[in-house]
C-alpha cells in the first residue's frame, strides 16, 4: 500500500511564520509603548496661539501702568519664555538657580505663572528668598491660565514666538543641557522669522 498518499500536503511555510510575524509586530509596539513616559505628554497646543488669559500680578509686583500682571498680549512682539512654577514645587527649586543664571547671561525675557499658591505671600516670599528671574509674573491660584496652557505639572516652560504662538513645551526643570541643545537654538530660529 503506498502510504505516502495519506500524508497531508506539506504545511505552508508562510502560515508557520504568521505567529512569529504577529509576535514581532507586538514586540515593537510594546517596546515603544511601554518605554514611553505617559507623564511627558506631547502638548496639543504646539503651533497654536497662546490662550486668551489675564492674571493679576503677584503681591509686590503690581504696576500702576498695567491692568494685569500677565496677559496674552504680553507674548506678542518678541520671542518669550513662559515658566510655570509654584513655591510648593520642589523641582522648581532645582530649576531656579539655572533661571537666575539665565537672567544674567541671556537676553530672552522669561514670564511666569505663579501656580496654585495657597496664600498671597507664598510666591512673593519664595522669589524674595531664591531670587526673582522673571520679567512679568501672574498669580494663578485656581489654574485658570495653567489649564488654558494645558499644564500638567510644575515646572513647565513654553517658548512663545513673536506672534504669540506656542512653539515648544519643556516638561520638568530646565538646565544648561536642555537650554543649549533645544531651547536656545529654537529661540534663535524663531527670532529670525
Amino acid at each position, binding site marked *: 500500500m503506498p502510504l505516502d498518499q*495519506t500524508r497531508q500536503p506539506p504545511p505552508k511555510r508562510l502560515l508557520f511564520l504568521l505567529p512569529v510575524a504577529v509576535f514581532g509586530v507586538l514586540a515593537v509596539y510594546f517596546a515603544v509603548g511601554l518605554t514611553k513616559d505617559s507623564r511627558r*505628554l506631547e502638548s*496639543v*497646543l504646539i503651533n497654536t496661539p497662546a490662550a486668551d488669559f489675564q492674571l493679576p500680578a503677584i503681591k509686590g509686583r503690581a504696576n500702576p501702568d498695567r491692568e494685569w500682571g500677565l496677559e496674552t498680549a504680553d507674548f506678542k512682539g518678541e520671542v518669550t519664555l513662559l515658566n510655570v512654577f509654584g513655591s510648593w514645587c520642589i523641582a522648581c527649586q532645582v530649576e531656579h538657580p539655572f533661571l537666575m543664571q539665565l537672567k544674567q547671561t541671556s537676553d530672552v525675557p522669561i514670564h511666569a505663572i505663579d501656580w496654585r499658591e495657597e496664600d498671597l505671600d507664598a510666591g512673593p516670599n519664595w522669589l524674595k528668598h531664591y531670587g526673582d528671574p522673571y520679567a512679568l509674573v501672574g498669580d494663578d491660584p485656581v489654574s485658570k491660565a*495653567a*489649564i*488654558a496652557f494645558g499644564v500638567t*505639572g510644575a515646572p513647565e516652560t513654553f517658548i512663545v514666538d513673536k506672534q504669540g504662538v506656542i512653539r515648544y513645551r519643556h516638561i520638568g526643570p530646565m538646565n544648561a543641557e536642555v537650554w543649549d541643545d533645544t531651547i536656545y537654538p529654537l529661540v534663535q530660529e524663531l527670532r529670525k522669522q
Partner: protein
Amino acid sequence: MIARRFLIGAMLAWTFATATAFAVEPDEMLDDPVLEERAREISAGLRCLVCQNQSIDDSNAQLAKDLRVLVRERLVEGDSDEQVLDYVVSRYGDFVLLKPPMKPSTYLLWFGPILIVALGILALIAIFRQRGAAMIAVESLAPAALSDDEKNRLAALLDETDTIDKTGGSA
C-alpha cells in the same frame, strides 16, 4: 460581642464607602442638582493629569479639583456637555478622555480585538477544513471489500497459521 462586631463592620463599610465614593468637595457642588449631575458625569470621563488612572471625579489632586470647578463654571455659563469636553480636549488632547473617541487614528484600538478574533475564527475554519479533507482522503484510500476469491484465500491462510500454531510449529 456580636453587636460590637456589627458596629465595627458597619463603621468600616461606611469609611470605605465614603472614601471611594468621590473626591468632590461640598463647596464645589452646584446648587442645581441637574447641573451637578451633568458635572459629575463629565468629570467621571475626564482623566486626572496628575494621577493618570483616576478620573478628575475620583482624584484628590489640586489640578483635578480646579478642572472640576472649571467644568461646573462652564456648565453654569450655559455650555453643553459637548462644549465642556471640547474645551478640555482642546487643552490636553484626547488623552484626557478616559474613553478614547472613535476616529481614524483610533480605529485599530476599537476594532483591533474584533479583527484578531475574526482572524482566529478564519484560521480555525481553515484548519478544520484541511483536516476534514485529509480524513476524506484517508477514507477514499481504504481498500475495497474483499472479493469472494480473496476471502477464501484469507480463510485458508488463517487456517494454515492455526494449524502451525497447534502443531507447535515455530513462529
